[in-house]
């Protein structure tokens, strides 16, 4: 099956229907392995067992940026190549990216609590992730603000690409702002060289979470395609009724329900 075939929504639905159960199973297996290895890893001499939050925090933080990258590519697909599934991919990815970003914030906050004494600290890294979270939420609001999906897609695509360009700038500015106000942060959240016993579980978890994203993303894309079909059917039903001057709409109703069943 060529890539062009995949672009057809019906073929996409058929393919993902077959592939999703396997992806879901692989995700669960990898997550289980990763969590098991994480539990087995030794405690940090300084942070104790709480360092293990890193196994969830770091993959989530990495994914929050990865998903924005996926959305950026999808946005290019919408604007440059006009790929039919590109805007579906972009729209479906946004809430998932926001969720990963939120989890990164949450786990980061819990990780920092023993060290800082508060649940939140305006350090450079967490602050950048918080701004990324706001940008995700803004993007989701934009998707919902425009009724027509294709117009919303173009606006969202522009915003996504602008965001992608701006993210390094924001990150740099926040780093600068942070050094301006505070001495160099003593605590390193997993930045130091990692021992192999940490590195392998971390990589496994990273792959597992990535698989989780792929699974959820494909499932969300299926939902979005079906949602758009429902909308098209409703619009077709409305317009079909508008053109009929025959009040006895019995036969037309039969046709409408047959089409709805075949979708």
């Amino acid at each position, binding site marked *: 099956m060529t890539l062009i075939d995949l672009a057809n929504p019906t073929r996409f639905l058929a393919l993902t229907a077959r592939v999703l159960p396997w992806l879901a199973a692989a995700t669960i297996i990898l997550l289980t392995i990763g969590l098991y290895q994480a539990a087995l890893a030794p405690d940090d001499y300084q942070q104790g067992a709480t360092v293990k939050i890193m196994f969830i925090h770091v993959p989530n933080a990495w994914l929050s940026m990865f998903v924005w990258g996926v959305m950026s590519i999808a946005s290019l697909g919408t604007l440059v190549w006009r790929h039919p599934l590109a805007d579906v991919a972009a729209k479906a990815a946004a809430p998932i990216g926001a969720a990963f970003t939120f989890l990164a914030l949450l786990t980061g906050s819990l990780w920092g609590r023993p060290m800082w004494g508060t649940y939140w600290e305006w350090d450079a890294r967490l602050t950048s992730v918080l701004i990324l979270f*706001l940008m995700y939420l803004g993007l989701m609001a934009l998707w*919902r603000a425009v009724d027509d999906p294709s117009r919303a897609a173009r606006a969202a695509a522009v915003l996504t690409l602008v965001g992608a360009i701006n993210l390094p700038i924001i990150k740099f500015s926040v780093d600068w702002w942070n050094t301006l106000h505070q001495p160099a942060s003593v605590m390193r959240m997993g930045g130091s060289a990692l021992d192999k016993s940490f590195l392998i579980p971390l990589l496994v978890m990273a792959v597992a979470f990535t698989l989780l994203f792929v699974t959820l993303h494909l499932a969300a894309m299926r939902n979005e395609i079906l949602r758009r079909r429902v909308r098209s059917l409703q619009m077709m039903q409305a317009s079909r009724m508008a053109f009929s001057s025959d009040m006895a709409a019995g036969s037309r109703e039969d046709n409408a329900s047959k089409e709805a069943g075949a979708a």
Partner: protein
Amino acid sequence: MTALAALIRRDIRIALRVGGGALIGVLFFLTVVVLMPFAVGPDLALLSRLGPAILWLGALLASLLTLDRLFMADHEDGSLDLITMSRTPLELACAAKALAHWLAAGLPLIVATPVLGLLLNLDMIATAAVALTLLAGTPALTFTGMIGAALAVTLHRGGLLMAVLVLPLSIPVLIFGVAASQAVIVGPMTFGAPFSILCALSLVSLVIGPFAAAASLRHGLD
């Protein structure tokens, strides 16, 4: 279902279904609060002292900016004409719309306050105080802001002009809201005095707002 209940239910339904939903106000609130440390610096002690002020300013701006379109949509699609011709007094209809707006857009701000208090390093008691003052004060913001929204329809202007007109009217609410929160946190002054005045301001605005808005709308129906 009574007329006013039907109007409140309709407005809440539309607020939840259309556009970013009413939660866009919460997102704006969150954004404003996040902006503050970049201007003020990440010093947690300073942020917690400024906390109630930052939260109140954020809620104030979020309220006013979402109120702008309170009557515009109904005016544009002809619903306002019919509302005027119904057997419900226009003042009550305005009050009902403002109430629906407060429920859909104001209450979520109050619910979001604990999370934002976390970002500003406020302890639980301080956050609870701010949330309580917001609960008492946001009705005043909504019912005062509705006057600006009605003027926006009459004058066919919106946006910043209306905000500029209505903001001075909101200053007393801001003063007593922040003062009541600070009384709990820092506290030589009692909580009761500013809080009572805050409640009084809300009650007064519940009366003045609908009358002023209705009067303004009647003149603007041409």
